[in-house]
């Protein structure tokens, strides 16, 4: 017997688990099937997906990185020297 389709509330509750690939395969497929037919939920998932893609790139200034790189190089050189 085919299980009843899940509704929008269930999709919203499981939206992060869906985007993070944390749902069991069967449940993930149910959400995907719902999204294929529901514009509102699809827009919501896309909004959250674009949010996740954006926060994965939290910026660090290049100048700060250059200074830090030199500092780490110095610490590693000192560590190597101590090992000798």
């Amino acid at each position, binding site marked *: 017997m085919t299980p009843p389709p899940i509704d929008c*509330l269930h999709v*919203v*509750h*499981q*939206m*992060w*688990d869906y985007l*993070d690939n*944390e749902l069991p395969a069967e449940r993930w497929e149910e959400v995907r099937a719902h999204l294929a037919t529901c514009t509102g939920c699809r*827009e*919501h998932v896309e*909004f*959250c997906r*674009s*949010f*996740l*893609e*954006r*926060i*994965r*790139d*939290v*910026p*660090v200034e*290049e100048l*700060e*990185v250059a200074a*830090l*790189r030199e*500092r*780490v*190089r110095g*610490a*590693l050189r000192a*560590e*190597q020297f101590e090992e000798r």
Partner: protein
Amino acid sequence: MLPHLPDVARYARSLTRDREAADDLVQETYLRAFRGRATYQVASDARRWLFAICRHEFLRTRRRDQRMVGYGGEAELEALASAGLHVAAKRGGYERLFAEPDLAPAIARAMEALPDIHRTIVAMIDIEGLSYGEAAEALDVPVGTVRSRLFRGRRVLQEALVDHARDAGLAPSVQHRPPERPSA
């Protein structure tokens, strides 16, 4: 390993939200990596290896400083609140705000403003790429606690960015952006 330093620095910054503490953490990460270089498998992912060292060192230091406080059971409500934010963003014309190129400083500020327990989870899952189970194991908390902290952290970040879009008047540039015309 040094080519991965900007990524490690970004991860350390998101864990600590303090530049000085983050720089110390990066240095300690590289020193520990150097000392443990015999355990590194040449074929494995160096970035992932450095991230794991960075996280271990961060958690080791923090456990020393404080006991972690746990709570749980709010994940679904937080997911629902995120949906409410999407509706608000849509109504305000900010639905495409995450495509806005000038958003980076606002994201950094919002991450810094997150409480420790939420920022740590967001960094571990959204930046390092751990699964819920891996994060739960690293923090020694139930997966349900990871979910509720993560979803709350994301919701608070979204809220801050929607507020930023409204206050900065980003709507006209992010709403109804016309499609690019094909060149003749």
